[in-house]
């Protein structure tokens, strides 16, 4: 019996099983849950969150954490809008305005990741403090640059990336596939797990720990910038407060999926399951017409339970099966 529980707890598909069970359990009581239009909404809600969570997966595997992703989303949103908007955009009217805007957003995301990574890997500062202060600084910067104003008039071709299902899905799929291949099929991926599992041992084994850590934060910044492309396109607006409230969802979904807060453990597919589960909970609670406060309490409880489960799994992995 204990062995079965252990197997169940350590299963790769635990969160997918939970999602399927939850879906089946809620379906009879939740009007419209399985309706195609609702499923399309569910998928659309998952896509940008999944991209940010994939970036966070890299950082968590390296035993770090990036709390600055909301502000990265905001600053990249504003940057893209400043470059592309039809009224005052730096490149308005240029035929290459959309690629240039996308490049600018990705460059800002990568730079912020680089700054976080450099402070953590080179200056040996705690990730929590570094990324928290980055969040404060960058949030302020985004608001200062725009004077709190939203920027409208983005090119329709840019808006379509986030607003239309096919391009949004294609971008997310591409990010997920690349992330999966990078983690499972490359030397850099193995180094990342090694650093997260035991930094000292990895260093002794010749793993370039600082470069790997730096790379993880750059990937996280890039993913936040890509998610910002989807969020900004959806709302057709560059906003200095874009993504301000998603941090708990990002970390919650990643941890619910099974990526460990203790580092060295995580997979792309787990993050997909985590995002699916969290989005499903959000969607069903909304369809149940529960109050905002109830939804917040339920979501907070689920994320807390996931963290407890993570601790239990971490504990179990270190013990023999018949213990």
């Amino acid at each position, binding site marked *: 019996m204990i062995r079965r529980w252990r197997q169940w707890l350590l*299963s790769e*598909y635990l969160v*997918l*099983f939970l*999602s*399927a069970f939850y*879906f*089946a359990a809620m*379906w009879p009581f939740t*009007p*419209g*849950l*399985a*309706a*195609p*239009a*609702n*499923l*399309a*909404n569910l998928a*659309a*809600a998952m896509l*940008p969150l999944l991209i940010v969570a994939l970036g966070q997966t890299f950082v968590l595997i390296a035993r770090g954490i990036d709390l600055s992703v909301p502000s990265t989303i905001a600053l990249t949103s504003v940057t893209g809008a400043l470059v592309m908007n039809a009224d005052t955009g730096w490149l308005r009217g240029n035929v290459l305005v959309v690629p240039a805007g996308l490049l600018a957003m990705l460059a800002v995301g990568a730079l912020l990741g680089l700054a976080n990574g450099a402070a953590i890997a080179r200056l040996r500062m705690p990730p929590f403090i570094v990324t928290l202060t980055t969040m404060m600084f960058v949030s302020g910067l985004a*608001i200062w640059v725009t*004077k*709190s*104003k*939203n920027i*409208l008039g983005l090119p329709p071709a840019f808006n379509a990336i986030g*607003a239309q299902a096919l391009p949004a899905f294609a971008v997310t799929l591409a990010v997920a596939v690349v992330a999966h291949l990078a983690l499972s099929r490359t030397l850099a991926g193995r180094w990342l797990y090694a650093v997260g599992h035991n930094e000292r041992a990895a260093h002794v084994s010749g793993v370039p720990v600082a470069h790997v850590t730096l790379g993880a934060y750059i990937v996280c910044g890039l993913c936040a910038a890509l998610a910002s492309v989807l*969020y900004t396109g*959806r*709302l*057709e*607006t560059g*906003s200095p*407060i*874009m*993504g*301000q*409230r*998603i941090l708990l969802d990002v970390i919650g979904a990643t941890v619910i999926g099974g990526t460990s807060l203790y580092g060295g453990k995580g997979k792309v597919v787990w993050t997909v399951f985590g995002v699916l589960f969290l989005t499903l909970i959000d*969607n069903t609670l*909304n*369809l149940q*017409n529960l*109050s*905002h406060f109830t*939804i*917040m309490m339920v979501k907070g409880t689920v994320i807390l339970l996931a963290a407890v489960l993570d601790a239990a799994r971490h504990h179990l992995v270190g013990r023999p099966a018949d213990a």
Partner: protein
Amino acid sequence: MKFRTCLALLLALVFTGCDKPATSGGKLTIGVAFETLQTEYWVAGFDAIKAELAKRDLNVLEAIADQDANRQLQQVKNFIARKVDGIILVPKDAQTCLPMIKAANEAGIPIVLFNRPADKSDAKSVAVVADNFQLTRETVSFMLEEAHKSGKKYKGLVILGDLGDLNAIGRRDGFDAAVKGNEEVVEIVARVPSEWNQEKAQAGVVNALQANPDIDFIFTSSDFLFPSVVSALKAAGKYHKIGEPGHVILGGFDGDATAFAMLKDGYLDATGVQDVYFEAQSAVQALMDLRAGKTGPELIADPGFVIHQANLTEMAPRMWGANVKK
């Protein structure tokens, strides 16, 4: 095996899922999406709308976006997926709501914006909004009349809201319009940007009082910032009742429970009250009119009213803050 079973179960549920409209038992269903419930005003508005819908025997679906415009877009799309009969929306701002209005327009679902209008665009909606400019001007004019009675020249401070919010801009402009031409009564020495944040407001007022200890005329763009003002005034030893020496003339906007208590206790000179009940009733009526194919104004203005010591007893029953249970 288990993985395949899970997938099969999910797919079976998906393909057998049916697309039922939200309308139940012949009753119409209205989706009510609020950006936040973090201040008393929004809670009062939310309750007033639900009460109005219940009075008309309409079902309600509710969604709160926790100040996240993307989440709100998703919630509006959920309403549309459930085929609601109308949507009442409090957007985060005037711009990010445009895709939501367009989505409702495409689905043929009428949409009414409560208390915050959208920017000009080809998206069709009706907005019920307090006349922020006029009501602020009237409130500040009343404060100026009170100041004029003493015969001395005042030093003024104004707390501004989030200037990305059209309501905050209207209130700022209303304040400026009232003060213009009354420079002999009050000189504005400090303008504190709050971004609708109590901590920022308090820090700003404290700093302003240090730089200008003789400030004796304060207007806040929202009553929910009064705790910040009162705290700063108490720290500076300047919080006195009307008629007492050293009283700072205070005015606000909204009509919340704090303002009502301050009026009752004799500390607050005046506040511009948004008539939440009028706004809720107008929003639901506008939705019904849109459903019936009637064309009306795109903007319905709530004139509101100024409440002060002289009309407190008479006007308190219409002040939503006086009806909030503490």
